[in-house]
């Protein structure tokens, strides 16, 4: 169980970092009134957030599940 939690934890940390960075970029793009703000949002912020979501979802699918001792 420890191995599973550690692996999942790494996925969650990576997803959290990507999402937080993306959201910070989004805040900057919202407050910056400039034609480039949309580019900043769409090509950096949204991609970082999207990657974070993908990493989170990947953790649900690909994180290794340990063999539980009491199953045998």
């Amino acid at each position, binding site marked *: 169980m420890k191995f599973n939690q550690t692996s999942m934890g790494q996925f*969650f940390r990576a997803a*959290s970092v990507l*999402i937080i960075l993306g959201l910070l970029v989004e805040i900057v*793009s919202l407050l910056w*009134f400039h034609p*480039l703000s949309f580019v900043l*949002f*769409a090509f950096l912020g949204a991609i970082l*957030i999207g990657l974070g*979501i993908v990493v989170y979802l990947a953790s649900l699918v690909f994180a290794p599940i340990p063999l539980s001792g009491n199953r045998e």
Partner: protein
Amino acid sequence: MGVTGILIALIALTIVLAAAFLVRPAITAGIAGKILAFAALCVLPALCIAMGMSFHMQRSEQTKFCISCHSMEAYGKSLYVDDAKHIPAQHFQNHRVPPDTACYSCHTDYTIFGPFKDKLDGVKRIYLQYVSTPPNPITIPGGFKNAQCLHCHLGARAFQDNPVHATIMDTLTSNQMSCLTSGCHDTAHDVANISHEKVWKPGT
């Protein structure tokens, strides 16, 4: 609290929750933690992207946003020309289009994916502005289509009852004859002579 405030509050909440999973990923050991993780790392970020996209789409419809680009400054000034022959100025000053979204009203493609197509065109123009060289003079690819004018004017009494319009209605609706370049309403954004034009100042 405006839309921006709500969106920033949502983003702040998402950051706080995501930070909790960054510091203590073990929170997800229980069922409640798993549900919270799904909300914080999937649902809320997706909502932030959707609301952010909607916010940016709406903001890019604003006149002040369009003319915030250096190349568009002269076009923004042309909205204040004190001459009724200048079509954009006449529409803007008399509120025939919403003044806050004047550029968008006449230049958007009135189709289901029109705003998205406009957004892509806008990204191309940003590329020209910051990476390549903006064309001089700025032109609309494919020309200005009558559909932009007819979106509002078609069916309007003053337009329909005008004998000139009635005579050439088919050529106007089929875009065979341009409203702007056929000699009828040919003064649009005359940016080449903008410095010589008399300017209207709101409130005077």
